């Protein structure tokens, strides 16, 4: 991990001094804010209707009805926003030939990958955690199940860990940001919908595909189910993607 800190600081500074971070943040806050208000209104309408019918429905509480769909929405929005955070990471270093500075300095590839990855994930996390006002607003008027809020956010942050790793990987493949972006979205769509919309005819295969799906593991966490297997899956997914990224960068040195 030689020279991790200078690299990490540089990445973070680049994010904060470029407009992209603020644009991603603003778009994300606007979209989630809109969905939040919508589902609050929906929730109160449904509450009025249900109170008329007299028989209580299981799981009808703001955490499940408002927050859980919002977690899903956050994940779905980031299928599109991830490349905005990650496409630059390696592609730009190659395009601007600053790779020559990095690779002729006493810096390890591991440090480069780790610094870029962590910086991207921190940016992602800042954007995600900016929605923390939501459970507090709900809790002010009603009450939330804080454990489910916790596993939900844990799920979103771990999902982001995987998404940033995919983005960084795609960025290491090319010196063109746009190609990295398209690839990232492609891969994320596949791993999001696999086992769901992208199911297969055979029951057995669908089960395997669900096992590979980012969404399935993330979904379980947003239900408030703290299952170590989901956490391990999301973490391993990131580690594998980062490992491949390391290999790609190492191999591309031969081609110059």
């Amino acid at each position, binding site marked *: 991990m030689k020279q991790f800190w200078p690299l990490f600081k540089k990445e973070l500074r680049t994010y904060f001094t470029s407009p992209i971070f603020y644009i991603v943040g603003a778009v994300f806050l606007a979209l989630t804010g809109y969905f939040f208000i919508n589902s609050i209104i929906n929730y109160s309408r449904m509450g009025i209707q249900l109170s008329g019918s007299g028989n209580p429905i299981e799981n009808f509480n703001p955490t499940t009805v408002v927050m859980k769909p919002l977690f899903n929405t956050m994940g779905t929005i980031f299928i599109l926003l991830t490349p905005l955070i990650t496409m630059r990471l390696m592609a730009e270093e190659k395009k601007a030939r600053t790779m020559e*500075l990095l690779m002729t300095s*006493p810096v390890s590839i591991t440090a480069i990958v780790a610094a870029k990855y962590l910086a991207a994930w921190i940016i992602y996390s800042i954007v995600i955690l900016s929605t923390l006002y939501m459970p507090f607003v709900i809790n002010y008027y009603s009450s939330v199940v804080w454990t489910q809020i916790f596993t939900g956010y844990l799920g979103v942050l771990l999902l982001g860990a995987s998404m940033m790793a995919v983005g960084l990987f795609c960025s290491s493949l090319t010196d063109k940001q746009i190609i990295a972006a398209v690839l990232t979205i492609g891969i994320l769509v596949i791993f999001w919908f696999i086992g769901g919309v992208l199911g297969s005819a055979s029951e057995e295969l669908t089960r395997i595909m669900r096992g590979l799906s980012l969404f399935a593991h993330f979904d379980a966490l947003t239900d408030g189910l703290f299952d170590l297997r989901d956490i391990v899956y999301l973490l391993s997914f990131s580690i594998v993607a980062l490992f491949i990224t390391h290999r790609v960068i190492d191999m591309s040195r031969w*081609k110059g």
Partner: protein
Amino acid sequence: MISVNSVTKRFGERVAVNNVSFTVETGEIMGFLGPNGAGKTTTMRIITGYMPPTEGSVRVNDMDVFEHPYEVKRIIGYMPEHPPLYLEMTVKEYLRFAAELRGLRGQRIKEAIDRVVELCGISHVFNRLVGNLSKGYRQRVGLAQALVHDPEVLVLDEPTVGLDPRQIVEIRQLIKDLGKDKTVILSTHILQEVTTICDSVTIINNGKVVASDKIENLSRRFAEKLSILIRVRRPEVIDIDKIRAIEGVENVQWSDEKSLRVYLSADVDIRERLAGEIFSMSAGLLEFRTETPGLEDIFIKVVTEELNVT
């Protein structure tokens, strides 16, 4: 010290560098010459550890570049062909980052930056964005980046491209001063640059070394081309055949109306006889000058000879 040992680099089928070997001693500045696409940049990238060679090895201060990459990279300063700049940083931020990457910490960073800013003459653009600088200043920042950790070994790929004439003189002097106690490799297309600042020269063509020696040794080796230029007031009275007849003269040619170029075979010194002969013709001798082959002649000779062979 840099020693390049039988380095070959292939890109697929293309051989960019073919069995190249040379050494540069500490305190020596080596000029690295060759036509476009000869393999200079590729060789330098291998020396700096940017890319591995297909075959062969490079040692810097007796450490193998690919066995001890971090130790070697710490003592090398590399200025690539295209300065590796972050356009969205200020010069100050950029140099600080470059210093940190090389492992400098704390107070040493500030000292190092102050030193290179002074050396490279970039103090008045210190707080500007790199992206807003002119080409010449970007080039200087690129050089400052290579010097910031005070490396023992400098690898400079066409360092004076894009500089104005006054800057060129300054930067050349800077490199010359640095070269007194460092090992420097410098590639260039300006032959005059090599004669003014380099101690030795390596000429590469089609990926192969075609000449590698101290500059004065090279001149001596190519001294077969030794010639004398004679300028006279009355060219009409010169009897060329008489001059040709002198032993040791290989050829005589008019180089312009009033000047005669006499090519000599290397071993005999016939300057006295030749001068006497001209004098006896009473042609009105105006100038009598021995011409040693310049680097330009040598360069063109070795590069074209090589082309003829292949």
